[in-house]
């Protein structure tokens, strides 16, 4: 079985898996990293949203063979370390606004929110409601109102 290596939450790791296995299952079933959730494996619900090289992506729809050794994959578990704190400002905002209900979508929501804010910043502007309208992450509990509040607050605390 092929061996794949990439950087996961700050550590270079190796894992044996068939080439075509989607990264979500490599993370969850083989490496025991369960923060990214399975909601559809169709790149639709976005509950597995994580980062690759700092950008949001859905590991349910990427074959492990397409991850390069130098690629940095960050899941919710590794998000705080990207800012060198116990919690990322977006996670703090999630706590402050008590966003979660069941919590199943929230790791993905937080990872998507961080990327969305960075995307706006890269364009030299603050995040807007129009940006937030583009987030496709499903929250079946319907916490969208608090998600919006928290993303805006988290964005402020993320700094420039």
């Amino acid at each position, binding site marked *: 079985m092929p061996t794949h290596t990439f950087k996961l939450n700050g550590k270079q790791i190796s894992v044996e*898996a*068939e080439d*075509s*296995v*989607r990264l979500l*299952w490599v993370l*969850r*079933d083989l490496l*025991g990293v*369960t*923060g990214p*959730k*399975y*909601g*559809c*494996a*169709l*790149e*639709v619900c976005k509950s597995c949203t994580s980062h*690759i090289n700092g*950008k*949001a*992506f*859905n590991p349910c*729809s*990427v*074959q492990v063979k*397409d991850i390069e050794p130098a690629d940095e994959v960050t*899941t*919710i*578990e590794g998000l705080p370390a990207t800012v060198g704190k116990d*919690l990322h400002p977006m*996670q703090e905002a*999630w*706590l402050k606004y*008590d966003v979660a*209900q*069941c*919590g*199943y*979508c*929230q*790791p993905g929501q937080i990872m998507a929110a961080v990327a*969305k804010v960075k995307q706006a910043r890269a364009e030299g502007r603050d995040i807007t*409601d129009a940006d*937030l*309208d*583009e*987030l*496709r*992450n*499903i*929250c*079946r*509990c*319907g916490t*969208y*109102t608090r*998600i*919006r509040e928290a993303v805006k607050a988290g964005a402020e605390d993320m700094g420039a």
Partner: protein
Amino acid sequence: MAEHRRSLDRPSDQPADRRGLLGRRKVLGYLIAAPTLAVGVSWLTNESDPRAADAAVPSLPQPSDIFDLGDLQNLAAAPTSGLITVQLKSDGTAYFAVPRAEVGQGITTAFAMMVAEELDLPMDKVEIALADARPELLMNQLTGGSNSMRSMYLPVRTAAAIARQRLVETAATHWGVEVGKVTTRKGVLSGPSGRTATYGSLAKLAATAKTITVSAGLKSPSEFSVLGKPRNRVDAHDIVTGRKQFAMDLNVPGAKPTMVARPPTINGTLRSINNLAALRALPGITDVVGITHGVAIRGETFGQCIDAIQKVDATWGPGTVDGESDATVLAKLRAAQLPMAVPTVPLLTKTIDAEFVFAFASNSPLEPDCAIADVGPDSAEIWSCLKVPIVAQEDIAKQLGLPIDAVKVHVIQGGGSFGRHLFHDVAAEAAEISQKMGKPVKLSWSRTDNFRQGRTHPMSTSRVRVNYLAGNVLTYEQRHTSVETDFGHGLGEMITAFAADLPVAGNLSFAETIFALTQSSPYNFGVTTQLLNEIPLKFNTGSMRNIYSPNVVCAEELMVDQLAAKMGQDPVKFRRNFLKDQRLLAVLNKAAEVGNWGKAMPKGTAQGVGVHSEYRAAVATLVEIDCRPETVNRPVEGEGVTGPRVTKAVIVVDPGFCINPRGLEAQMFGGLQDAIALALTSSLHIKNGIPLEGSWDNYFYTREWNSPLDVEVVIMPNTSDSPSGAGELSVAPAFAAVACAYARATGTLPTYFPINHGKLSFEPLPLQPSTPQSPTDGLDHTF
């Protein structure tokens, strides 16, 4: 599931104001023989909140006015609630295993607040777990009907209060001082001369060798420092760090990923697997077996199970509704509508008659149904999110041919429920597979399985006829007709057990009993009848958040707006004139004030209002909707629908006693988003025996781009000492408000919900293979 609507007016000879009645009431419980302090409680009361009716043309009380489903559940819970225990560990932590399921509704936080309040303990010293299936609890282990707070508020507080009192008595004896000289604060006992002791240090000393009866006083609401104050979820930190564990996240040794290839119609059966050897030889696959409704595949990863599903060559038997589509079901419903009862009306009386159709809807949460099963020759162990674990345990034991006590059932927190976890379909299937493979399995249904084979809220019609004359409504008749809603999860058993005590006349079916206990018109509309008929089509159905109420109330409130228009009255003013209940009137007035009812709005936009009482609570929702073409036709990237947008919502709730304003607000938000979906976008299209929907880009639950930017929840001052139910409370009035706003903005009367159901807005996924292959282009869509 859901409970129940009822009018708040309860004809009663009790005084209207019972506030404070429960303050410092002596309540009974038991000190249970255990190594450390343990308290059990056997005390339960039915809260009541009688209100004087204020009638124009009075309507006789309907059954749910007198006795609603929550009352029934309380009654059923009473004999067994004594087995609810709070234990104090020697580290000073209070431990309470809740005989309920946490699925996002926030009960673990609320129970922690109750224990912290009465025990004078910091919140972080309270540990709340979910109890395994406990057959001895009989039916007091059902999470549904928005009943957890109503049925458990007093027993849990009582147990904590007794524990606190026992600690005080123990400290007093230990120190040789009077009980009255010992105080408690934040988990520490204090006595004269500066003596202190932590709860933990006295946990063993306070234990009893023999179970004895004791009593203690509860705090009065004026003494509360935790209850009634906003609290964040106790599991929030675990959630935002990805540590909260759901069934699929559990590491049970040997329980490898398992999925099922399924037939192309609902409840189809497996006749044969035609390539079993080839499937077993696929990479990463460990086991393949045929089961009742499919081909079960176990492997090293879920991804490889999905791969194998693509290769399954099986012969399928028919399902249970193969010939049915939306149109055939609707024709059957129409044929089954019960007749109106009012034969003749006075001269000059005018009539409005309308029929509303509500499409099938999915109660699937975001977390796909998942269960771990480890079945051996003599015993079995199950892990899953189960709202009725006792029934699951009984059924699975029977299915496996094992005694009930050989089947251990663990209740795991759920990633949502909305009614789905009242049934244990996935746990039963996991047990079947584990038994056949002789190995532990971690079974997950696929997303497509969840929509196509999972439970649904069935299609229904609501026909309404009103007769009105000279400013009065003389009759209101509503005939609700639905595909059979499955209540086979055990509520039926509860009703059977207590049927003799029910003030419901006649030999009603379970569904009719639920309907009667939950539905009642809040208006003085003269002779009022609301009746249910159901047709026995064998779809997979079940309760969905708020059961019948969203559809029934939507139809009623649309008719109320029609009546108001015919009488030349403003919708809010009309409701003020005809509402029977003061609490509903109060929330309506508040919503109209906060939402600035009647303000000038551009053409194509409008306000709408809906009111509803249920679970001993009252809610009014006011929304603004934008139906202008530039909004309706706004683009969205990728697959998805836009359409009219609710731009603003004000939800005013009178919850009786509000336990946790933050949690209550969260439930109001969630109900609103459900309502927007039900009114505008989300439904299942049935075609030839199966729903066409297979993903969240087909089943259009509300997404960010369809959610309002401006949502305000107003919680009214407490009107009672008792909490109402909240989990399902806001769906119905918000659904009605959105529908009414849409009608006013467009100048039409919508009669088919959701309003976009007539146009299929997606390309259906193939029916076979039953679970589609995952994409591989994820790296092309990064942002």
